[in-house]
């Protein structure tokens, strides 16, 4: 392609992927209870279709899309709806969730259904099937996939970009997906290329996954123009804008979307799920998840039903070690720490990382010494030092108006390098939510 295979700035946190990089994906036994929040994606929450006491089979649609930027939710296990009630969400809030008591000794076989072959469907039907399959971006942001895949007619898309970077430390979800299900990735790519009407697809993979690069290359179908491109290992290589810059040397305009530069980016796990939706008819009811870290007895890569509680997932991996200290949903750079073991795994949860006391030990903070390291780390060239001092003084409008706060993607590079351990990206997150609660779109 035309990019330099890297973007400017960024950081190099320890990768820590060895724990699970070679561990094959395994299924886990079904838990006793599943919690499915109606808000698992960016956009409008889904609308529940079931009530207390209803019996559901695995794969049944139990909530429908609550708007265009919204998707359906399906039962990830057979059982009885205990209630639709407020339950703990990984972001710290309590949201309406469908709670299912899983039937013990159930075969967990989905109802038989007719799966129309995707080649016979037109673009609109494919998109509806994807929305009905409940597909969202599975790399973390959980943006409804069909929205990304329906650019307005005046936006010409020329390339489908598959994100196999997995730049977050510890996580090996996408890595194992590519190593174990490369064909599924390519089938999904074929379907998405038809949806978008593009001739060219590129898979961007960081160089620290040579086995994934090799397998993905070897399995590319002859009739498709799919390029597997090894990329520099650097955080946040997997951020959409950084990936597009590295692969295509195109810069998404400020406030714009990848489609503005003719690209649609999809995470490899989402693409593999597209194949599943059309090949087996199974909607997004389970996902591959890395459970790892120094605080876990047996780090593993698992297939878990969506809605399984984080505590059950940890138990499935041998439980906590004695010195476990912090549970993180997602990767350690951006994932929120969890205090409630009842919070469920969502569609967009790519991992559970448990750190021990030594690694999670909080660091003392010092005053800013204006070293400028954060400016050298910020992948979108903000001035985190200045933004941080504004944030501490709660001058949020100034951050938004004059200092490009909305360009910040909260990747955490500035906090990572700060020698004074000032929680910069946290300050920016706080500023963003404060502005949003006042109705500012940031």
């Amino acid at each position: 392609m035309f990019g330099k295979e890297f973007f400017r700035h960024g950081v190099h946190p320890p990768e820590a992927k060895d724990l699970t990089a070679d561990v094959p994906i395994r299924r886990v036994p079904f838990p006793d209870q599943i919690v499915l929040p109606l808000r698992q994606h960016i956009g409008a929450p889904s609308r529940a279709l079931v009530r207390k006491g209803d019996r559901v089979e695995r794969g049944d649609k139990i909530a429908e899309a609550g708007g265009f930027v919204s998707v359906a939710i399906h039962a990830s296990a057979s059982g009885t709806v205990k209630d639709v009630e407020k339950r703990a969400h990984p972001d710290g809030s309590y949201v309406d969730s469908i709670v299912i008591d899983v039937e013990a000794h159930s075969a967990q076989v989905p109802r038989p259904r007719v799966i129309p072959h995707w080649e016979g469907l037109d673009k609109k039907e494919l998109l509806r099937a994807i929305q009905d399959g409940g597909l969202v971006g599975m790399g973390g942001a959980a943006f409804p996939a069909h929205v990304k895949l329906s650019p307005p007619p005046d936006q010409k898309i020329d390339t489908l970009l598959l994100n196999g970077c997995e730049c977050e430390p510890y996580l090996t979800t996408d890595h194992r997906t590519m190593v174990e299900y490369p064909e599924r990735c390519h089938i999904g790519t074929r379907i998405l290329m038809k949806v978008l009407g593009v001739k060219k697809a590129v898979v961007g993979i960081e160089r620290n996954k040579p086995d994934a690069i090799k397998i993905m290359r070897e399995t590319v179908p002859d009739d498709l123009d799919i390029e597997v491109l090894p990329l520099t290992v650097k955080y946040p290589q997997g951020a959409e804008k950084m990936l597009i810059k590295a692969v295509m040397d195109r810069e998404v305009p400020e406030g714009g979307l990848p489609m503005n530069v003719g690209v649609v980016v999809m995470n490899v796990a989402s693409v593999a799920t597209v194949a599943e939706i059309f090949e087996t008819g199974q909607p997004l009811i389970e996902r591959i998840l890395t459970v790892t870290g120094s605080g876990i007895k047996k780090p593993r890569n698992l297939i878990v039903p969506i809605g399984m509680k984080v505590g059950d997932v940890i138990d499935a991996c041998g439980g906590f070690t004695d010195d476990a200290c912090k549970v993180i949903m997602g990767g350690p750079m951006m994932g929120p720490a969890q205090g409630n073991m009842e919070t469920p795994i969502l569609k967009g949860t790519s991992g559970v990382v448990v750190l021990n006391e030594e690694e999670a030990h909080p660091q003392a903070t010092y005053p800013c010494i204006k070293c400028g390291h954060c400016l050298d780390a910020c992948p979108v060239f903000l001035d985190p030092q200045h933004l941080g001092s504004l944030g501490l003084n709660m001058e949020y409008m100034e951050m938004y108006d004059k200092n490009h706060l909305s360009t910040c993607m909260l990747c955490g590079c500035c906090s990572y390098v700060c020698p004074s351990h000032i929680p910069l990206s946290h300050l920016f997150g706080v500023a963003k939510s404060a502005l949003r609660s006042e109705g500012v779109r940031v």
Partner: protein
Amino acid sequence: MSKPSLLLTASPHVLGPDSTPRIMWTVVATLIPIIATSVFFFGPSALLILIAAGAGAVLTERLIGRKGSLNDGSAAITGILLGLTLPPGMPLWMAFLGGFFGIAFGKLIFGGLGQNPFNPALLGRAFLQAAFPVAITTWPTTDGPWGALRGDNFALPLMSPKVVDGTTGATPLGLFKFEQTGTGMGNLLMGNTSGSVGETFGLLILICGAYLAWKNYLNWRIPVSIFATVFAFSGILWLVDSSAYQSPMFMLFSGGLMLGAIYMATDMVTSPTTNPGCWIFGAGIGFLVMVIRVWGGLPEGMMYSILFMNALVPFINRSTRPRVFGQQPKARAAKSEEAKS
């Protein structure tokens, strides 16, 4: 499942290896070889001056600074750096007073670490220069018995120091400016000249600076920019008339230029945060120091150049902010707006 007591903090949950105290104490560690050679050249006087200036800075920080702020190491740096810029024969009480002034009025009055606009060590020195202009320009030579004091170090406070005859001389810059005498390059590089406690051994300062730059504990653009500007400026003058002006190498290795460029100008708090800003900052210092040295009344101008550029740092930072990712250049953005309407 037994749930351990869990820690809830904001992401990121992994942090880089650097910390502010580590940066500060590493800088202190790189100063140790410079201190050792200064003691070699100037005997016990050098050590006494460093201890006095250091004590002034550290005690002031301890007494009126925030609790525990000594641990970050910045007061120790200020004290040592101030000591390194003073003549070895100076009365100790003056050095102590300089340390006090640098910390109290150079740093704590602005709110402590990170808040000061001016380099505190240099502000302390500027105070001493204004208060004791003779004492701060009385330079001992490097010869004479090692163990002897290089001046009236133990003069009582507020008493004028006794002049010790025969052991004082001019610095290479002073020699050149007022007596039109050159100094051998070898002596300049190895520090065997008159001068402040720690400024003379240019080569060693350069090596320590290279280590700090490699650790990313100083922004290499600042010293490189200073050297390049001074080299170019003095090189042109030297080519025009090599008898009236000194060679570029002499300019680089004489006076406080090395110490100032490596340890003073790169002070993180008082230098620009942007990389283009660092180039401008360094070029400004290099230009000013040449103007003062060549046309000014003083033989050396490193201190005033850095302090002057310190004052411009907020302005430099504001005008060199990088273009944000995806931000349209103003002209093009205006054009596309036109096209839309």
